[in-house]
């Protein structure tokens, strides 16, 4: 199984150094196609996506995150730093599944 990185040039190139394939994405449409492409490929086990890109296709990512087990999706901040107001995993679980702990 493989990693796949969707992000800006720096992220893709950086992870490319250690042999992670990826796709450079600049706008909504590219993000959508890249994401779908990554999902279709069964060899890809983990999708690394930068936050800015994930924001562009937020509904798709979230829907996927909570319905499918596989592949895993992990969001990372890009080189400009973390996006403010990011939801923690606990809030995510709360809003998605509606449980309070």
């Amino acid at each position, binding site marked *: *199984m*493989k*990693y796949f990185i969707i992000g800006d040039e*720096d992220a893709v*190139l*950086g*992870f*490319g*150094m*250690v*042999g*992670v394939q990826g796709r450079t994405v600049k706008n909504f449409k590219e993000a959508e196609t890249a994401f779908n492409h990554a999902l279709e490929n069964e060899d890809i*086990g*983990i999708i*690394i996506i930068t936050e800015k890109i994930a924001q562009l296709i937020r509904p798709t990512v979230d829907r996927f*995150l*909570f319905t499918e*087990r596989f592949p*895993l*999706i*992990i969001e*990372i*901040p*890009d*080189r400009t*730093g*973390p996006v403010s107001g990011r939801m*923690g*995993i*606990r809030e*995510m*679980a709360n809003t*998605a*599944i*509606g*449980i309070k*702990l």
Partner: protein
Amino acid sequence: MILAINPTRMELLRLKKRHVLAIRGHKLLKDKQDVLVRKFLEIIEETKKLRIQADNEIQSVFQSYSIAEGVVGGAAIESLFAVPGAQTEVKFKTKTIMNLKAPEFEVEITGNPYNYGDEKSSILVDMCVKKFGNLLNTLLKLAELETTSILLAEEIEKTRRRVNVLEYILIPNINETIKYITMKLSEMERSNLTRLKKVKAMITSKKGGKK
């Protein structure tokens, strides 16, 4: 609500068995829920810590990447890594938490990531490659934990629904039905008794009349 069941002795016996079973199931599920919640909280804490660590790591990785890019030049870096020397593979396993299959991964970098020419490169690039390799491990662990916590949350929700159904619907219903059937049966008993008495009275009065 009374279950749609005929008020017979057979059904009463069956219901009593169901009642015992339901109570046992309820207890078990409740225990399961408690364990799940505890596990969930543990994992959430761990995830939080790891998230912060990963964020810091990412920052430092991009920092050293920026420096390397500044020294060597973006286009040069791109040409160095045009043919990646390393292959990153992920091995997938599952571990079980309370009958729940959680993913577990192992990262495997095969090949030599440092297979680029020396003269265009710099030690900064080497450091950068090393950091990215480490980062992959951290991210993997993070993905594992986040997915596990989502799975756990779903499972908790499911278990909670089951516990609630048992506690507030099924067990009260069974209790009510048991009560209903017992009443019905004793009512039948009583009416039977009075009928027998009546019959007896009629027979004795008939006999007495003949004599």
